[in-house]
């Protein structure tokens, strides 16, 4: 197997995730797209790990999975808080930071 087939798959998923983050309005959908990006990074890490014949990439991938779980927990708590305060999770309505 070539390493490029895994790297290109990861790149494609990464770009899909970027597109999703940029176009989605619903906050939950943006978090879903971020998960797509994190998965593509894990595929890249494990592909390089298999190419170099070590095990360090597996450790990094496990740490990324743990960080992603923490990120989803905090992110969904924030989404719930926003929903409770304004009955909507449309990110376009969150414009208080605009000058």
């Amino acid at each position: 197997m070539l390493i490029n087939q895994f790297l290109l798959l990861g790149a494609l998923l990464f770009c899909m995730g970027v597109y999703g983050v940029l176009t989605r309005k619903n906050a939950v959908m943006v978090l879903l797209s971020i998960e797509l990006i994190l998965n593509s990074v894990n595929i890249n890490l494990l592909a390089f790990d298999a190419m170099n014949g070590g095990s360090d990439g597996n450790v990094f991938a496990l740490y990324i999975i743990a960080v992603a779980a923490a990120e989803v927990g905090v992110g969904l708590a924030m989404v719930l808080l926003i929903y409770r305060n304004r009955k909507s999770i449309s990110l376009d309505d969150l414009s208080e930071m605009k000058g």
Partner: protein
Amino acid sequence: MVLASDIQVAQNIGFGIIAVMMILAGVGVIASRNVVHAALSLVVVMAGAAAQYVLLKAEFVAVTQVLVYIGAVMVLFLFGVMLTRAQLGKDADLNNKNAAIAAPVALLLFGVLAYVLIDGFADEKISATTGAGATPQDTAVISDLIFKPYLLPFWALSFVLLAAVIGAIVLARKD
């Protein structure tokens, strides 16, 4: 000379099938008009990623992916969808007006990445016999790495998880 064992026909066919499945499901995640359908498409992407990890000889990460992502994170997402009472049917109001900008950005990014990868790793191969997962004690190797050279990041990660759990409880608590 190219040996038949170097080409790995079966693995390549498996990779192709799983990759096509993952890409179709990924399009479902970013294009679906229904929040629950998008979340279930993400399950397919994650399961496909776990299968690719097995092809990459990382069985332990694959099992962790299934347990943590498909088991825990997706349940969290479905709870998020339910608690925010996002419409369970078709929801036309899911995208903003940025598609005209986002599509060129994503395509340009993919073009640059693909050019760099094809230029840099033209025909580098993943060796079949060496590397992680070639031997049954691979998980022991990973645990040795976690608890010896990567112990400090492991501690930091424990604190991050603890802080995230406490933060999530504080944020989502009703009072």
